[in-house]
């Protein structure tokens, strides 16, 4: 793709670099799935089944001398290993039954952002039964409902399971990427544009678009811009004010307020799509479905940009390969939910934990909306990505993570553009 310099003097021609792209969103697309009124027990079953097979293969290397039991097969005082799904009993977690059990006046009006409480305790569950976990080895503040682990311990006299050690699945294997140092290629991540909200600054966004497409700056800037091979917009691109979304019929003047943010965004997208490949992911505030995996935003929303073949509407979570480098990321719902129900020193630690548990969104379907799959759990991470990104976070953070089997990956937290004006460029 060409990107000619606009200016006087001897025009220098920069060709935009290209990279081989492969979209791996197939597992997140819901097509052909018939909803027959099934409940979420099926997805938990498939999750437990796959993770249990995995953990069963890892247990012999961890503690080969101990037997693996089902929870009903526990014998008192005997040391063994159990594998199951973890459930965290939280006192402050809001339940729909609270509306019926408590008086309305005693329900606190301010909902806490984090539902943790010192009295939270963990329970392990498999098909045969559940057992409460005792002991101080496992800190409830670290774990959430929905992860599958193997525990070493023994049953106590009051029926609890005293935990002595824990085995998580660990980072998945990574396909080694051949280090190609010939060319420098960049990927730009933007998130949280919130076109249509009061915090959106059109000038700032236009500046970004101009810079990325190469219409700004001198030769140095443009040579940097020509190395950008892809733009990934990770969610929350538009924000439609809540007042109009109440479900009542709209007056004609209000109808234009509904579509204005998307039209404005489409205009900027045309500029971007004309210059380079763009991937757009839906986020919590975008006009897409609520439950994960969010399906791609429909083409009719972007009449201008969808004409270009460089424009690609993707699912959330989004997985793709660029020159054999595996990228995996979400628009933030999974990490935000983790931060409501557990504790960590920063968001990157949450991301690391999801990789160690090999599950993108362990709290789905418990507290995060999720499609009730019957035969698969698409959020299981099978191969370790080289770049793992999360959008709509408070600030920009990044870390290089090294795994025990020579996995190397970069974790990126993409901040909200409307608040910080920061876009992330990854090499």
């Amino acid at each position: 793709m060409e990107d000619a310099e606009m200016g006087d003097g001897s025009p220098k021609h920069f060709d935009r670099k290209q990279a081989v792209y492969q979209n791996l969103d197939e597992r997140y697309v819901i097509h052909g799935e018939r909803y027959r009124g099934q409940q979420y027990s099926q997805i938990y079953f498939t999750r437990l089944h796959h993770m249990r097979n995995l953990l069963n293969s890892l247990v012999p290397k961890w503690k080969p001398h101990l037997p693996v039991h089902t929870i009903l097969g526990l014998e008192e005082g005997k040391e063994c290993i159990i594998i199951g799904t973890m459930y965290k009993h939280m006192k402050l977690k809001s339940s729909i039954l609270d509306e019926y059990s408590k008086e309305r006046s005693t329900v606190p009006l301010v909902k806490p952002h984090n539902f943790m409480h010192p009295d939270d305790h963990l329970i392990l569950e498999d098909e045969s039964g559940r057992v409460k976990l005792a002991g101080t080895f496992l800190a409830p503040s670290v774990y959430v409902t929905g992860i599958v682990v193997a525990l070493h311990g023994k049953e106590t006299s009051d029926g609890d399971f005293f935990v002595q050690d824990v085995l998580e699945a660990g980072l998945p294997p990574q396909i080694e990427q051949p280090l190609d140092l010939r060319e420098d290629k960049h990927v730009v991540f933007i998130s949280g544009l919130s076109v249509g909200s009061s915090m959106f600054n059109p000038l700032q966004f236009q500046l970004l678009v101009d810079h990325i497409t190469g219409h700004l700056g001198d030769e140095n800037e443009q040579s940097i811009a020509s190395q950008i091979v892809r733009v990934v917009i990770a969610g929350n691109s538009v924000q439609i004010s809540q007042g109009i979304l109440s479900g009542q019929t709209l007056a004609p003047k209000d109808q234009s307020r509904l579509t204005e943010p998307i039209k404005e965004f489409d205009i900027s997208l045309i500029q971007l799509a004309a210059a380079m490949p763009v991937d757009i992911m839906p986020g919590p505030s975008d006009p897409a479905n609520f439950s994960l995996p969010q399906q791609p935003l429909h083409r009719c929303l972007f009449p201008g940009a969808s004409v270009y073949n460089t424009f690609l509407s993707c699912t959330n979570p989004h997985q793709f390969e660029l020159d054999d480098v595996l990228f995996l990321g979400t628009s933030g719902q999974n990490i935000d939910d983790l931060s409501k129900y557990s504790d960590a020193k920063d968001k990157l630690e949450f991301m690391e934990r999801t990789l160690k548990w090999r599950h993108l969104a362990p709290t789905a379907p418990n507290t995060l909306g999720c499609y009730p799959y019957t035969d698969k759990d698409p959020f299981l991470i099978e191969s370790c990505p080289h770049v793992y990104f999360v959008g709509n976070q408070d600030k920009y953070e990044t870390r290089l993570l090294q795994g025990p089997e020579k996995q190397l990956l970069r974790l990126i937290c993409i901040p909200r553009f409307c608040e910080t004006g920061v876009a992330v460029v990854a090499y």
Partner: protein
Amino acid sequence: MASAGGIRGFYREKKKGGVTKPSPKPYSTADPACSPVLKSAHVQGQEKEAEERLREFDMDMRYGPCLGLTRTERWNRAAVMGLNPSPDVEAILLKCSSSAALECLWEGRV
């Protein structure tokens, strides 16, 4: 019949003396879903056996919860997952005539 004892235990009737009659299959008297269709006793016996076998398959915890899936779907899923579901259940499902037998035990009742 070599059964795991799950379903038969629900419907077992105990009588304190009194008139003894030859005890029929335990669920046949208590089962509300039995439709009074005129068939020969032999065919009826076979059908009940097949139905019992399918209910055992439904209740088997190894293949996961049975709600929300047809029995065929659940059997196929178990086969794909490598759980080795028994082939005679598949045989019954393939040649069963009534559509009610294809749905799991709790379909429509829960």
